[in-house]
């Protein structure tokens, strides 16, 4: 019985984080944080600024070191791996501050998303997908990224993430610096991508923004992570 349920469980769990601790300088940011994301889910981590949301996502994606704990992605232990290796396995991070290459064009930025061999095999297909998702990026493909508006930059950031051919897309506070209507459009796109089969782990300050689109939610407070049901969260925040 145990064996059986375990095999089912393993098949569906894409990402599993167990008791990780991370520091920012000397500051202990994450305390024994645990979470899991199943295949096809849209999972949110919600919390106020400075409580470790970004650090959590960066730790999972190999962009900041993990002091202790276990991270499993696609079944294998990935706690010691750096971002480039994880991107190759399909775990892709979209940064809150976009992290575009400002003196390169929209197209160059997108194509760099498909830098690794695995993603390059799907480069054409994914580029068409991004351009049909955001026709505006197709129009501005030869424009330098430093001249884009905030909304367009966020489109490129998400588009570049998709170009990496992710199996799990980790999106760090996409609403940051965006006007409310642009945030809404952005989150609708994320929701649509999820409905089309992409597994998503998203971090946001406010649960209200994510209303109705998420499967499960964790709250984070001073580096402590708790799974909460969405109704309770509403009251907490």
């Amino acid at each position, binding site marked *: 019985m145990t064996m059986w349920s375990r095999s089912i469980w393993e098949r569906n769990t894409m990402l599993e984080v167990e008791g990780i601790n991370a520091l920012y300088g000397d500051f202990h940011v994450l305390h024994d944080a645990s979470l899991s994301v199943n295949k096809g889910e849209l999972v949110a981590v919600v919390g106020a600024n400075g409580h470790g949301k970004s650090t959590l996502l960066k730790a999972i994606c190999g*962009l900041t070191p993990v002091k202790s704990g276990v991270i499993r992605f696609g079944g294998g232990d990935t706690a010691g791996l750096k971002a*480039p290796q994880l*991107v190759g396995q399909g775990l892709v991070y979209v940064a809150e501050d976009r992290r*575009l*290459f400002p*003196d390169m064009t929209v197209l160059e930025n997108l194509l*760099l998303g498909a*830098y690794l061999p695995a993603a390059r095999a799907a480069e054409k297909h994914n580029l068409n997908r991004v351009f049909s998702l955001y026709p505006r990026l197709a129009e501005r493909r030869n424009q330098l990224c430093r001249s884009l508006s905030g909304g367009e930059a966020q489109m490129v950031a998400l588009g*570049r993430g998709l170009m990496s051919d992710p199996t799990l897309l980790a999106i760090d506070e996409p609403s940051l610096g965006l006007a409310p209507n642009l945030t809404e459009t952005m989150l609708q796109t994320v929701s649509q991508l999820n409905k089309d089969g992409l597994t998503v782990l998203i971090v946001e300050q406010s649960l209200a923004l994510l209303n109705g689109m998420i499967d499960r939610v964790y709250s984070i407070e001073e580096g402590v992570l708790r799974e909460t049901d969405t109704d309770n969260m509403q009251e907490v925040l």
Partner: protein
Amino acid sequence: MTQILEILISGITQGAVYCVVAVGLSLVYGASRILNFAHGSLYSLGGFLAWYLVADGPGLPLWLAVLLVLPVLALTGIGIERAIIRPLRGSENWKINTIMVTLGLAFIIENGLQLVFGPGTRTIAPFVEGTLSVGGITITWYKLSIFVISLALVGALEFFLSSTRYGQAVRAVSQDMQGANQVGINVNQIFGLTFALSVVLTGIAGILLAPVFLVSPLGGWGPFLKAFVIVVLGGLGSTKGAFVAAFILAVLEAFVIFYIGPSWAMPAWLLMLIIVLMIRPKGLFGVWEN
């Protein structure tokens, strides 16, 4: 009129070689924000290695010597990044630390060269002799050749940066290191690559200029200082800036040398640098940030 044209041509041909040295310095700074103070000593190293193979040791033809020196220079660049730059990266004050360490490396290379080859100056015979005269303007075939080779090298670098996968990765790393990490670029590998290219470029310049400026253990400081002024004027980290600035300064130098005297060349450069930095603190095309 002919004279002015001749000075202009002399400046432009010189500018192309300066450009090769400066672009290498700028490439490394752009990608890794490291100012390599051993850049000039590596210029000397290239000259000495070629001189040894051509004139002192086995007496190889120059082209074969260059072919043999190239991988040595590339491996030297990779080795420097791996052994002394990477361990310091991320440490406190790493920018200052890497400057001190590369300065130390410069002394090690210089003294190593003196130890092995002695303190004297050396020269490599030019691979072409004679002069070309067109409409009263005379230029040596050698100067013309190194001009063409230098332009080809810089052109090849630009092509690499703009049109190849690894070149795009170099630009990505120089524009946003975390962003580069996020798309799967192995940043350390790119640092190694830029150091390799940089040392190859400055080493080749050392070989090309050996017949003109001679090779000596301390002879790299002049080109380094010039490359440094060019890179700051053009904007730290911008290869395009280095390209433009190299020609501006080389032409200025040619005129100053002719009309005022050779010892005024560097003061004129520094004056130009001060004026440009007063108007544009980041240089012409700088990526420098605080």
